[in-house]
């Protein structure tokens, strides 16, 4: 049974890294995982998307077809991918105005604000988002994800990123309650 994730936002937000960490955590739990990406020619600012497919079985097609979870950090990404959501859940940043025509289950979570205000660093929004996504989906255990975060973030930023991850899980818990 495949579980598909689409992480979308703007180039430079670190969504690709979030996707890599999620895939790596799944592998640490002995699952199969494939991560792909699509992005524009710009280094920053263009639309950016990472996809992760996790399955206990062999994964033939590497991209998301009908995502179980969509993360949207910008109004543009919510507008592009929100309407495509069928069975899955949307996790959208609280700064993004919701469109009542998008009927998929939607959780509006203050990801960007938590990163910039509670943690004081806008750059860890991707890891806050990752914690929220993992918390809502329950796809991997928090301690596995923490290990994967430690493996992949720049040296010296581990503690900051681990607090960001913890915040993300807390936001997920609050959103589900």
């Amino acid at each position, binding site marked *: 049974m495949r579980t598909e994730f689409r992480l979308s936002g703007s180039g430079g937000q670190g969504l690709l890294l979030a996707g890599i960490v999620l*895939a*790596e955590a799944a*592998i640490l739990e002995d699952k*199969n*995982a494939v991560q*792909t990406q699509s992005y*524009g020619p710009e280094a920053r600012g263009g639309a950016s998307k990472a996809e992760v497919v996790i399955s206990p079985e062999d994964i*033939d097609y*590497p*991209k998301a077809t009908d995502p179980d979870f969509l993360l949207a950090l910008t109004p543009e990404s919510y507008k592009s991918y929100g309407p495509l959501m069928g069975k899955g859940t949307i996790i959208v940043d609280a700064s993004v105005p919701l469109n009542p025509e998008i009927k998929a289950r939607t959780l509006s979570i203050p990801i960007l604000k938590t990163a910039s205000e509670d943690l004081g660093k806008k750059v860890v929004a991707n890891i806050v988002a990752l914690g929220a996504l993992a918390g809502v989906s329950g796809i991997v255990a928090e301690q596995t994800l923490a290990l994967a975060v430690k493996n992949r973030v720049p040296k010296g930023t581990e503690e900051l990123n681990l607090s960001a991850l913890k915040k993300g899980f807390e936001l997920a818990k609050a959103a589900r309650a």
Partner: protein
Amino acid sequence: MTKAKLMQGNEACTLGALAAGLDFYAGYPITPSTEIAELCAEELPKVGGKFVQMEDEIGSAAAIIGASLTGRKTMTATSGPGFSLMQELIGYAGIAEVPIVIVNVQRVGPSTGQPTSPAQGDLMQARWGTHGDHPVVVLAPGNVKECFELTVKAFNIAEDYRVPVVVLTDEVIGHMREKVVLPEQAELKVSRRKMPEAPGGYKPYEADDDGGVPLMASFGQGYRYHVTGLFHDETGFPSNKGDITDRFLRRLCRKVEKAEPVIRDYVTESTDDCEVLVVAFGSSAMSSLSAVRQARAKGVKAGLFRPKTVFPFPEEALKAIAAKAKRIIVPEMNLGQLALEIERLAGCKTPVERLSKVNGELFKPEEILARVMGGAK
């Protein structure tokens, strides 16, 4: 077996090259191949190898030919625009019989095209991009693990037959990360070119007419010989005699023909009783595999043939499977290049349908499934 790792296609290509003995890389970074240059720059100095960032792709291809002539195992990596610039040198490596490996991570072309989007439009260029009849081998990995395996194989073929070898991937295969368990170094077969024993009487291009491979001396080891892109006799010096030209060109191309049964590589899924045969390579084959499995679940006898050696194409294997099929569908991210090969090989017995996608996106499985289920268009 080593531990399972999350690995990118470009990373696996680089690790494959290193495992095969790569010790000289010259290149000009270009999306979506850049990670190969980055990782080579990082890793080669650790193993006593050299990394050179060149002024352009012409220089890159020339540098790896020169370094190979000194006994190094050499590689460069590029994408469409750079691959176009390298074509002249691929012909040179072919006629001068210099082992080189070129990785082409395909993006949408022609020209600078779409740098970050996948395509498979360089298939025929990989085979026929340089002028004149010439020897070249083209391998197409279909997943991250095969990026490793086929890059090792590319080096082995280059060394065994003294031919240029192209590893043809694309943006999806190159950038995709998946769970991979790589083989241990001790499990790998690693070839090295056959060298002469002593300089006395060495004739650098002396070989059996029937696709023989001459012994290759390294420059700097006391052998004095001439290398040229002109037709040459067994001494390496130019000749325009008709009989020498004829024999030489036939031997060059016969090398690959003779290698075919040895290097042949393909995978099949559900082809034993298949009525609808899908033929695809590289990332298109991932979508195809999913479509074939879904069609089987719906009771349609679909199967997949996926060449890993695309040139020389595994002709006999395909013909045998195609002969039993009622339809053949060829999904590819170009306007019908692999289809030309399939039409040539099987078209007179079984109808071959092209299925092209050129919008810079990978096929969705349902697009292929619809054609499999929907009948001929």
